[in-house]
């Protein structure tokens, strides 16, 4: 039995860590111009170029903002649905409605959004027919728009159902309904019950997942690729663009961005989990 655990760790290192470490090392060397056919030896030029252009920083904050807004809205909506409609959501049809979006890949959701919300899309045509708008240009910019409305909407529609299912499960497993009843019987108001009992229980049990989803959205690719603007772009889109660029001598800049992004996400993840561990012990 002991041998088993040993092999498990070996496998984790071999399949989980090694490829990741190797590709990270490769990206790091590439970013300093050490490897790469079009590069000619160690240089800091690419790192300098990335920070000087300011595009990376813009892209980073843009991505954080979109991921944060999407996560906060998704979680809030899911919490509200859970607490307000907990019983109804367990019905057959409604639970099907929740499961359905989970089965739709991001790329499909994006194309669907283009069909529905673009200036030549379904709603634009409908509004034009019934006379609300008088032409294509009257319809608001909802995709490829400066405020990333399209991206945020798809993020929410993809992520919200997941949180809803998660919260519904926790609600049941942690017996939130009974706890709430108990608090009410002890004289707490409805408001106090929600803010002091139900919500803390739900969030405490799930906040690691919420944070992980935030990181996941930070690195999303297809959805911002299809629905985003040309500038600023979300991080993954920026990285892929830099890696595939026409000027071979600047491909290393893509690796610089990839390295920084990996470091940020890794640190965030490590902090997240080490924090969780110490908290678990306290409990």
């Amino acid at each position, binding site marked *: 039995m002991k041998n088993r655990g040993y*092999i498990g760790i*070996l*496998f984790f290192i*071999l399949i989980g860590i090694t490829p990741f470490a190797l590709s990270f090392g490769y990206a790091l060397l590439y970013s300093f111009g050490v*490897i*790469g*056919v*079009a590069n000619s030896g160690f240089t800091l030029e690419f790192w300098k170029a990335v920070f000087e*252009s300011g*595009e990376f920083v813009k892209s980073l904050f843009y991505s954080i903002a979109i991921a944060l807004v999407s996560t906060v809205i998704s979680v809030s909506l899911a919490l509200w649905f859970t607490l307000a409609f907990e019983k109804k959501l367990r019905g057959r049809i409604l639970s099907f409605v929740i499961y359905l979006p989970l089965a739709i890949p991001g790329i499909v959701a994006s194309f669907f959004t283009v069909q529905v919300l673009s*200036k*030549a899309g379904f709603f634009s045509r409908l509004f034009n027919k019934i006379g609300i708008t008088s032409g*294509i*240009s009257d319809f608001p*910019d909802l995709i*490829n*728009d*400066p405020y990333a409305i399209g991206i945020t909407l798809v993020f929410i529609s993809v992520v919200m159902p997941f949180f809803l299912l998660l919260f519904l499960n926790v609600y049941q497993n942690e017996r939130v309904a009974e706890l709430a009843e108990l608090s009410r019987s002890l004289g707490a108001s409805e408001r106090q019950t929600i803010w002091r009992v139900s919500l803390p229980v739900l969030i405490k049990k799930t906040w690691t997942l919420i944070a992980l989803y935030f990181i996941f959205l930070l690195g999303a690719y297809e959805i911002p690729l299809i629905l985003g*603007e*040309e*500038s600023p772009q979300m991080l993954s889109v920026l990285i892929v663009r830099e*890696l*595939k*660029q*026409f*000027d*071979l001598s600047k491909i290393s800049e893509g690796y610089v961005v990839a390295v920084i992004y990996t470091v940020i996400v890794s640190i965030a993840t490590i902090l997240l989990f080490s924090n969780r561990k110490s908290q678990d012990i306290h409990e």
Partner: protein
Amino acid sequence: MRYLLFIVLLISACAPNAKESEINLDQLSWKDITQKAEGSTVNFMMWQGSPVINDYINNYLIPTVKEKFNIELRITGGQGPEIVQLIMGEKQAAVKSGQVDMVWINGETFFQLRQIDGLWGPFVESLPNAQFVDFNDQFIGIDFQQKVNYMEAPWNVSQFALFYDSARVTTPPTNLEELEDYVKANPETFTISNDFSGMTLLKSFLSELSGSPEGLNGPFDESKYEKLSSELWEYINRNKQYFWKKGTTFPKEHSKMDQMYANGELLLGFGFGEGGIEEKVNQGLFPKSTKGYAWENGTIKNANYLGIAYNSTNKPGAMTVINFLMSPEAQLRKASPDGMDSNTILDPSKLPSEWQAKFEEMPKRKYGPEMADLEDKAIQEPDPKYMIRLFEDFRTQVIEK
């Protein structure tokens, strides 16, 4: 034990394959080459984004090379950047037997692949059908101001053109001044895609600003570029408030522009293949009132080519397929307006008279202009550095401003 076996397999799967095929063209006759090719498999990486091209490849080329030369032709999807990434990756990993044998490329990819020595050659002179090609034609023998030197075989030639919906626009702009008036009169119906096609349009604009169709010929000239491009960015930034989405963003690809043209959001479009409108009108995507035309100062005309990867394991096979693609038979089929609708790279005067007649009998396009109609408005592709700089500066000077 099982785990150990798995690890060994994993490592052996990662190790480079030692198989290699080097051939010496001086010592081989064409017959030897086709003999070596017989019964082999050729991997062809090409752009698969057009139904008519895919139809030509899948329903004509693949069965024909199987029947004629017993060659198994396998297609992999991938264009410009993917091809460069793949070959560059293999070069970095010192892979001796590459995944692809032949690639379909245009000038920018040729330039990149030559930079990293990713192509094998020169081989084109050894192809029997090269005798029908006029390599002195500046639009075929020179690719982005770089001599082709038999490192890639021409496959198609076409001119860049603009198009408009004649039912909604009476006189389309043919120079920058008219374009300025046009966008003011028809706001949000024009844009420039941030891709190869859009940059090709910008090259035509740059050429116009230089004052002559030949203004950008010759090697890259930094001071000339600086002067002309700053005029161009000033022009675009001054007018972009009248562009699509008020110039706050630009479409990533020109296929997106085609869609927006099809649904009436845009009234002007552009593309290679003399605008590339024949197929789209035939499919019903574009209105029948679509018309193609060239810019007053000229639009870029260039050829696209077939190359062989430096580490191809089946060079004889790739040569056989490429030679067939350059044959009068395959080129004639490709020129049909109902099909791939792509101009031949063969010089009719060099062809046997029966083939000359067949090319002449070919029905004409119904909607798009013929390449011959635009001939006096054709300009050469400038040095690739112009494109590199345009890409970079269009982003920093226009999109991000």
